[in-house]
Each structure stands twice: as structure tokens, then as C-alpha cells.
């Protein structure tokens, strides 16, 4: 029973982590709370759904497609809601991305309808028994994709030129630019990566819950936010671990205390973090919050 819940917790946590990675990357580089991130996640889910339903794509193609579509959405977001607004007014990009959130959500309702849509069974459901644990092929798939994505991203951030440029830009735009880092490009790549990962998270969420709706973005955004704060602003590995942690806490509290209290615990954690460890569990990576 406990093992089973641990697996469920990891599954939930992995999708939280994937959403939070984008948040924290973008926050790190721009000090911007990117409000539309939840909607990107929702659009990723729908992109995956339509690719499977009408494109006849297999699930890997759907994941890749959702990733690319969301990455493009990230580019659009930069051009319509980040670059045109005044840089010296910290609230301006926040508000313009809230605007983008509303537009994306309404567009989705208008084009796709307000109903919950069933996600087709994209993976053959099989059950495996390993000792006391029963794990399904869907669970293995979701966990496998999420964790490999995180490992690749971690490597990218820590050990490539672009990853290093992203970290340097997060610490100081001006100094990074003076060392020859093209900050505009770093911002663009950051949005693409964060959004692409959110797109994958959307598809995985669709597979897991076998249903998606245009309103799924908000709750995902809120959970992503909690995870970002828990892991430390701008701290990518922190977001990964914090995501898994929050998933475990939610599932375990739901299993042993009660399902209705599930959200109570995540928000209680949020408040505790804000009160006692405002830099998150693993330390913020932004100069101001150090």
C-alpha cells in the first residue's frame, strides 16, 4: 500500500516538477512570474490530443509535437508580451503575460469548447507486479519520460555553453552581456525550453488523467508556483526535487488523511515556506533573494 502510494506520488510530483522547471527557468532569467505558463501546459495537452486523435500520431510523436508547438508558443510569448513592454517597469511584463493567459484560455474555450475531453488510450495498459508493487505501463511511461527529460535538462543547464549562459544571465543581465552573452537570445531559448517542457507535461497529464479541459491550466500553474517557491526561485534542480516532494506529500496525505484535505496540505506548505524559508528548501538562485 505504501509503495503503491509512493509511486503515485512520484507520478504526480513528476508533472509538478516539469511545470515548475519552466516557471523557475523563466523567473531566474527575467525575474518574471510568467503567468501564461499554465495555459501553455493546457495547450500542450490539447496539441498532444489532436495529434493522436486526428493526426494518427503515436504517443512519442505527439509528445514531440506538443513540445515543438509549445516552444513556438514560448517564442510568440516573448515577442508579444515580453519584448514590447518597458523593461524598467517590473510590473509591466507581469500584466502583459496575465493578458496573454486570458487570451490563450478564451481562445481554447472558443476553439475547443469548454468541456472536458477524453484523452484516447495512447499506450496499451498493462500491469506489472514487482514484489509488493503493482505498476502499470502508463505509469512507467510517464515516470520514464519525465525523469529522462529532467536528467537531460539538468545536464544541459549544468554542462553546456547555453546552459551556463542561462545561469549567468539569471545572475546578472548586464554583466553577462558585457561578456558577450546575447541576452535576448538567452531569454528566447529559456522561454522555448520552459514552454516545451510544459507542453510535454500537459500531454503526460492528459494520459494520466485520461481527460483534459481548457481550464486545467490554472491549477497546474498554482501547483507549479508552489513547487518553484519550495525549490528556491530560479533553482532548476531545486524545482525538480521539490516537485517530486510535493507530489509525494499530496498523495500520502490524501491516502492516509483524506482526499479532501489534499490541497490543504500543499497550500499549508506554501505558507510555511513563505514564513520560515522564503528562499526555498534549496536556496534561491537570484541575486536579490540570496
Amino acid at each position: 500500500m505504501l509503495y503503491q502510494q509512493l509511486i503515485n506520488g512520484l507520478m504526480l510530483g513528476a508533472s509538478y516538477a516539469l511545470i515548475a522547471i519552466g516557471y523557475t527557468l523563466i523567473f531566474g532569467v527575467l525575474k518574471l512570474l510568467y503567468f501564461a505558463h499554465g495555459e501553455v501546459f493546457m495547450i500542450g495537452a490539447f496539441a498532444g490530443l489532436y495529434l493522436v486523435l486526428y493526426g494518427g500520431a503515436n504517443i512519442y510523436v505527439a509528445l514531440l509535437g506538443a513540445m515543438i508547438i509549445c516552444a513556438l508558443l514560448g517564442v510568440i510569448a516573448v515577442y508579444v508580451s515580453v519584448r514590447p513592454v518597458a523593461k524598467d517597469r517590473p510590473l509591466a511584463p507581469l500584466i502583459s503575460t496575465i493578458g496573454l493567459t486570458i487570451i490563450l484560455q478564451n481562445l481554447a474555450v472558443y476553439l475547443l469548447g469548454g468541456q472536458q475531453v477524453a484523452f484516447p488510450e495512447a499506450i496499451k495498459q498493462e500491469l506489472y507486479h514487482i514484489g509488493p508493487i503493482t505498476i502499470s505501463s502508463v505509469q512507467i511511461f510517464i515516470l520514464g519520460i519525465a525523469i529522462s527529460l529532467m536528467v537531460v535538462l539538468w545536464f544541459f543547464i549544468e554542462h553546456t555553453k547555453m546552459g551556463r549562459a542561462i545561469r549567468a544571465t539569471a545572475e546578472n543581465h548586464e554583466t553577462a552581456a558585457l561578456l558577450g552573452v546575447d541576452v535576448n537570445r538567452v531569454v528566447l531559448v529559456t522561454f522555448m525550453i520552459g514552454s516545451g517542457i510544459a507542453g510535454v507535461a500537459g500531454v503526460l497529464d492528459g494520459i494520466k488523467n485520461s481527460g483534459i479541459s481548457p481550464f486545467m491550466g490554472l491549477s497546474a500553474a498554482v501547483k507549479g508556483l508552489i513547487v518553484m517557491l519550495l525549490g528556491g526561485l530560479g533553482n532548476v534542480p531545486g524545482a525538480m526535487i521539490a516537485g517530486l516532494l510535493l507530489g509525494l506529500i499530496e498523495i500520502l496525505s490524501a491516502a492516509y488523511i483524506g482526499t479532501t484535505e489534499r490541497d490543504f496540505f500543499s497550500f499549508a506548505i506554501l505558507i510555511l515556506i513563505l514564513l520560515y524559508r522564503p528562499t526555498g528548501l534549496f536556496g534561491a538562485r537570484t541575486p536579490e533573494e540570496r
Partner: protein
Amino acid sequence: MRDPAASHVCLSIEGLTKRFGGFYALNQLNMDVQQGHIHALIGPNGAGKTTFFNLLTGVLPADTGKIVFDGQIVDDARPSRRTLKGIARTFQNIRLFPHLTVMETVMIGEHCRAHPSVWKALGDAVLKRPFQESVAEREMQTNAIELLEYLGLAGKRDEKASDLPYGEQRKLELARALATKPRLLLLDEPAAGMNPRETSELDRIITRVRDRGITIILVEHDMKLVMGISDNVTVLNFGTKIAEGSPRQIQDDPVVIEAYLGEDVQL
């Protein structure tokens, strides 16, 4: 055609002006910096030296005037483009990336010179060798180690930049600037906060950098250092050039002495 043996101008400044409201931080500055020289820029606080660096690197736009670097006008280039063209700087108050290691800090400086694009890096990272650093990455590491050895920091490569003692943080900034392979290096008060031993080491380092063929503009208050290593000195006061010449000429210039009057400076 340029005669390589003859000295030629690396940086030429014409009529450079920057105003903040009614205050002229720089007023009609004309200045030529010879290739391969250490050119010092001195003057009392508020004379416009830091503003000059900010205009040179493109962090601030100039109001009027022209900056010609290696025969090219760079006025409209963004800071990162100017770095690519070969202008690098260090900062008066050290500006390292606190979360990066010493090694990573230097590799950031190499960023603009390493060619593989984002796409190639992404592709490499995802497809070709997920857990192996690319050839370019290893090359950058080799160069970084070489630079760290040059400045005596090789033993600290894996330490966090913010954990280094003050003097070494200054050296790391210098290493980072050198990693961009500059042809013109702007040093903003590199000796600030250094003890005499560290200053004399800095003296040797700056001379060695110059001997590599890198032109240096040095803003510094330590007159012993300035007069000891500079080939040329420009004196600013209230944004205006008041004197220019060899260290000898400057030390004897009555206008300069007057500008510094009341300040406890031994010229």
C-alpha cells in the same frame, strides 16, 4: 596599408558627450589610444571615468560623439556585440556570478568565441552524446584552465566564485575578461582594496597582459601604479579632458596638480 611596425590607433574617441539632466558627465572628449599601450585615465571622483567605460561598452548610449574601435564605428552596437568585436572590461566593485564556479566563470567569458550554435548544442546534448561534453566544451575547458594557470587560480577551479578571497576575485574578473579574447581591455580600479603586495603582483599581471598585445585602458587611483606602468595618461576633471601625455609630463603639469589640490594624492 598599415605598417605593422608603426604604432597605430586602437581606439579613437571624437567629441564624446554624456549628460545626466544638466550635468555633463563627459563633455566633448577627444582621445586616441595607441595599439599595445597601457593608457591610464585618471581624475578626481566624479570626473567621468566610469561613465566613459559605460559608453565604451555600450551599457549607456552616448548623447553625441563617435567611438571608433579598430577603424570601425561601434556607436550602435549592443554590449554583447562590442565584446565580440574585442572590448572587455572589469568592474570597480567586483561583479562575479556568485553561484558559478571559478571554472564556469571563465568559460562564460569564452562563450562568445565558441562557435557551435544553440541548436547544435541542444542537438548534441539530446541526441548524440547525452552525457558527454562536446568537443567545443572540452576546448573551452582547456582554454579556461590555461587562463586560470596564467593568473595562478588553477587550484581553485571548482570553488564558487563568491568563496574566493577578495584579491583572487579581482584576478578572476580579469581572467573572465581575458577569456573573451579582447583586443582592448578596460580595467576599472583594479587595485582598489588591494594591499601593496597584491598591487605589485597586479602591476606585473597588467604588464604581461599588455605584452600579449592587448591594449589596456586603466582607470585607477593608485598613482604609484599608474605612473609606473602607463605609456600614456589622460586626466579628466568634471567630464573634460584637462591634460594628456606621458606619466612624466602629467606629474609636472600644473593644471593637473591644481585639479588634485586638496586631495591627498601623491602624483
